[in-house]
């Protein structure tokens, strides 16, 4: 496969709704340890609201799908993760406007501008124990290597994301609620890093299933 389609993106967003409903408790448990026990509930509330909004869309371009998801997340989630993931999709939408296909290069550009949006808003650096610690390495792994198919690149990104999420465990948080705990935040996985890994894994699974 050399590109992903609107249908892929829509299937991915629908799968995300399912994934976050299934992982609601795990994510909330992670947040209970170093946050305020709502991350799973937040992600579930946000992503479960997306599919009903996609249904009636006239414009099913990838840009339109991303923008609709962004606005839904921003208006439904609240907390830190709502604006952050919302911004990610809102920025990505700018590069995907009117498009019904994205090459791997274009996907990387969308990802890049989305992640830049998150960093601009949240000011997190690598190592601060946030979703950025997953999204950064995942983007690096997604970048095309010679002879790559989209499936291969996505699998690489997903496993980089998974590894990066685990790697947040020994980190001491410097951003978000977990930073209030100081040293006590070490030894626990960052909930946002886990939700980011789940997003990447869901995208990879969507593409693999349709291949």
């Amino acid at each position, binding site marked *: 496969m050399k590109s992903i389609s609107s249908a892929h993106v829509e299937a991915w967003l629908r799968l995300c709704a399912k994934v976050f409903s299934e992982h609601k408790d795990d994510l909330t448990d992670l947040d209970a340890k170093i946050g305020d026990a*709502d991350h799973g509930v937040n992600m579930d509330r946000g992503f479960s609201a997306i599919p009903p909004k996609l249904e009636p869309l006239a414009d099913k371009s990838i840009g339109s799908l991303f923008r609709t998801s962004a606005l839904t997340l921003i208006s439904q989630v*609240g907390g830190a993760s709502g*604006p952050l993931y919302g911004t990610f999709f809102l920025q990505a939408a700018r590069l995907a406007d009117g498009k019904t296909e994205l090459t791997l290069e274009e996907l990387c550009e969308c990802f890049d501008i989305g992640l830049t949006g998150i960093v601009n808003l949240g000011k997190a650096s690598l190592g601060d124990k946030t979703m950025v610690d997953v999204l950064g390495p995942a983007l690096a792994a997604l970048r095309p290597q010679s002879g790559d198919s989209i499936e291969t690149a996505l699998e690489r990104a997903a496993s980089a994301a998974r590894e990066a999420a685990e790697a947040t465990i020994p980190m001491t948080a410097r*951003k978000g609620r977990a930073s209030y705990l100081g040293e006590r935040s070490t030894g626990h996985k960052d909930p946002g890093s886990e939700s980011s890994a789940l997003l990447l894994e869901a995208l990879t699974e969507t593409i693999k299933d349709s291949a």
Partner: protein
Amino acid sequence: MKKLINSPENAVNEALKGMEAAFPDLIKVNYNPNYVMRADAPVKDKVALVSGGGSGHEPMHGGFVGKGMLDAACPGAIFTSPTPDQMHAATKAVAGEKGALHIVKNYTGDVMNFELAAEMLRGDGIPVESVIIDDDVAVQDSTWTAGRRGVGTTVLAEKLCGAAAEDGRPLAAVRDLCKRVNSQARSMGMALTSCTVPQVGKPTFDLPEDEMEVGVGIHGEPGRKRAKLLPADEIVELLMEPVLKDLPFKQGDEVLLFVNGLGGTPLLELFIVYRKAAEIAKRVGLKVKRNLVGSYMTSLEMAGTSITLLKLDEEMTTLWDAPVYTAALQRGI
């Protein structure tokens, strides 16, 4: 989980319905997006005061909507900051020509969601200023954290700025007052028990019978450190020390002493805490000129307390004494 609720999903909305039914002359409630507003808003020739945050901190903020305090409050899901469309709609509903001040507690989510709302409002041509409250000395204000949390001072800032706005002062003046209040106040809290977020159904953390969490915020999160449980007087010393050290409180300064309950602590205990806190303040040469004792900013049913000290000046004292008529604070009206 033992709670007087029907379902975790509906708890916030049903509580809003209850507030609406209980205070029809005082407030109106809008649903989807959720906000509580003064029944008589928009009030002419007055800066509109808008605040908000996760639910579970009642009476804050909805209980502070009314004459002399907030014009609108935006309640998010429990412990989750509200979304920008709530602040956008609420502010549009209550702001007049003098614009609006957003009072925001310093949590990543609150700050970002309020900021998005402010951008939307500026797009609509509504003058908006924001002040971020960050008074919690339990957290170091450094690049190593998201900055200090906004806790007890929020209640005081809402009262004082509410009085200033009622007085007809312009937006910049109310904003500057809010910043001054924030810069002259410090807080510190502790918990005896965890609390249970309805959607989660079990306590956020386990705390043995003989231990406490020191340096907690208001989201049921664990504190900066866990310590052996102590008698009330020693706990108060523990809370007052960093508060007193952080602000350059000087001998003879006049202060407002706010002893806040976190939800599950009875008033009897808060008065025991107040007694000792006032004694310490006196010992270090401060003059406690005003006070507030009660559960005004809570963490669901968490047992615990927080202490806030605000250095008063004459202007603030006058504003504190000004009439206020809200669900949770009433005086002189």
